[in-house]
């Protein structure tokens, strides 16, 4: 279980995260979606959970261990992995090299300065598997910056899964992806995370996706939890619907 307890984070006078207590992974491979209007503090919450920001108060607990003061890389090795809203790849490296780096990191091999980067056979097998799973095999030797956008997103996700997370936090995984490819990206994420037993925490604006895939939603408003429950909450909670539709586009 990944738990945030009474988290606070302010930027100047603005309380971006205000007394937030939430938990993820109540069941195996739970899909939790975080919704809320712009400025509700969704990304700040993800940044706090993953260690990009440190909270002013409160704690973060991962599988009964307090990780509030752990560095991002320690959290990654503890099974807490994130992706960014804008796809961030190692642009001058090939698709294979990007995925390989993530696998090497998971295996704790990036510190090896005496071996060759491509001679770890178990790693190479894993890389091939991942490339197949995310249908990137044909692009394996292409430089990341030359990939079409949909594949860039998939590569980003493939690198996240290469780290074998227990919890995967996705900040708008479909942003910038064409409507046609949106479904493919989400389907792939859901499919792989269910097979691997990964709990996902996803920030999403597209309510069709939320109602289609969420086990549970958490609605944020002005830094606080407005409500949480099944995705049908969006239909039944009038105030929430107002918030999501009224302020958001």
């Amino acid at each position: 279980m990944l738990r945030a307890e009474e988290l606070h984070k302010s930027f100047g006078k603005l309380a971006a995260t205000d007394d937030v207590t939430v938990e993820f992974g109540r069941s195996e491979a739970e899909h939790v979606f975080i919704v809320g209007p712009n400025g509700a503090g969704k990304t700040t919450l993800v940044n706090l959970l993953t260690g990009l920001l440190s909270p002013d108060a409160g704690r973060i607990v991962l599988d009964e261990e307090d990780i509030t003061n752990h560095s991002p890389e320690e959290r990654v090795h503890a099974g807490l992995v994130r992706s960014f809203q804008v796809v961030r790849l190692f642009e001058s490296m090939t698709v294979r090299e990007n995925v390989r780096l993530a696998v090497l990191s998971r295996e704790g091999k990036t510190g090896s300065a005496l071996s060759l980067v491509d001679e770890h056979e178990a790693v190479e097998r894993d890389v091939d598997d991942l490339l197949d799973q995310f249908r990137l095999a044909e692009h394996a030797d292409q430089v990341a910056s030359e990939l079409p956008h949909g594949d860039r997103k998939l590569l980003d996700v493939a690198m996240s899964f290469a780290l074998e997370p227990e919890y995967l936090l996705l900040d708008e995984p479909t942003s910038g992806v064409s409507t046609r490819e949106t479904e493919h990206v989400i389907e792939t994420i859901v499919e792989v995370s269910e097979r691997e037993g990964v709990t996902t925490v996803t920030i999403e604006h597209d309510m069709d996706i939320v109602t289609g895939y969420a086990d549970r939603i958490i609605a944020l408003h002005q830094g606080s939890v407005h409500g949480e429950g099944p995705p049908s909450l969006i239909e039944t909670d009038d105030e929430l619907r107002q918030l999501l539709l009224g302020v958001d586009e």
Partner: protein
Amino acid sequence: MRPDDELRSWPGLVERDGESHLRVTRGLVLSRRQAGFALVVLAATFAIPDITTLAPSLQLTVLHQGLLFGLAAIGLNLLLRHTKLVSFGHAAFFGTGAYTAAVLATHYDVQSMTVLLVAALVAAGLMAAVIGYLSLRHTGLYFSLLTLAFGQLLYALVQGQSFFGSSDGLPVRPGPANRPLVFGLALEPEVYSVVMFYVTIVVLVASLVVMWRLVNSPFGAALDAIGEDRQRARFIGIPVRRYVWAAFVVSGLYGGVAGALYGMVRQHVRPEPTLHFLSSGDILFMAILGGYETLVGPLVGGTVLVFLQDVGRDVTAYFDLLTGVVLLLIVFGFPSGIVGSLQHGGRLRVAGRQLRADPTVVGDWLAAAGRAILTGVGVWLRNLGSVVGVR
């Protein structure tokens, strides 16, 4: 089975695609042409002491110094090329190596070249660990400024201490032979300088192979990732700070061994050429001049720059101008440096292709040339001004 597993000896010949290849180290396999080229270069390098006796305009010590600064630049390039950090203070490690040799030779009469080298490595490694730890709290401009500041701090400290011989520096002349012992041997002056040159070549080749292995290892890939996107690297679990620190120390070790050899070759160490920030700038410039996107570029850059500076001193009073002009040429004409440009198949061919594709590119070239000339004239005027005392 990996192709180069067919033969496990080192070094060795391997068959690949029906042709024999030379295997230098695991993974580094040269084709016939490449191996031939490498052998010719190596042979030519070993023949340099002979060549310099035939051609008086070439001086062994100058070339030797060029190679040593180049070695330091190879180390600096680990940071520049892979982690994308610009260090303006690498003379600190060159100087630490040189002064470690000098202090041990002068104050403690340590005679063995090997001991001096190892001690210099240790000292430079420690120095890099400390300076790196403090400088790497920042990236970008502030990192560069911190390395510059620490380098100058060291320079000022050494220059002000009589223990280090102040601005006169210290000799590196231990023992009755007045020179370090090379593998226990007291050599005659002429023999000593030639043998030290060969020692340098051996150290250079070993350093290049080690660097090749390092940048082609998982650690090297992690450094590349850090250079591209530091934050993303952290979020795939790479301990960025620790790795960059390690790279900084390695890069300092290269400076240290180069500096120690420099001290032993010159047999005297002064603060200006070893510790001053202008030397740091030179080392950085060498990497760019030779081509910082390549492994051997910094070495070529070091040799060429030191040679040019030496020749320039004889030819013109404005020898600083020469460095300026070369720098301009590189930035405007050959941004990938000497080795980089050679690898890209020649600037002229590229220019020819550009011209055929779009003739208006001539306008850009003229503009660049105009800017280069104006800047050159500016530098020249400033030099002229300082010579005739005009402010």
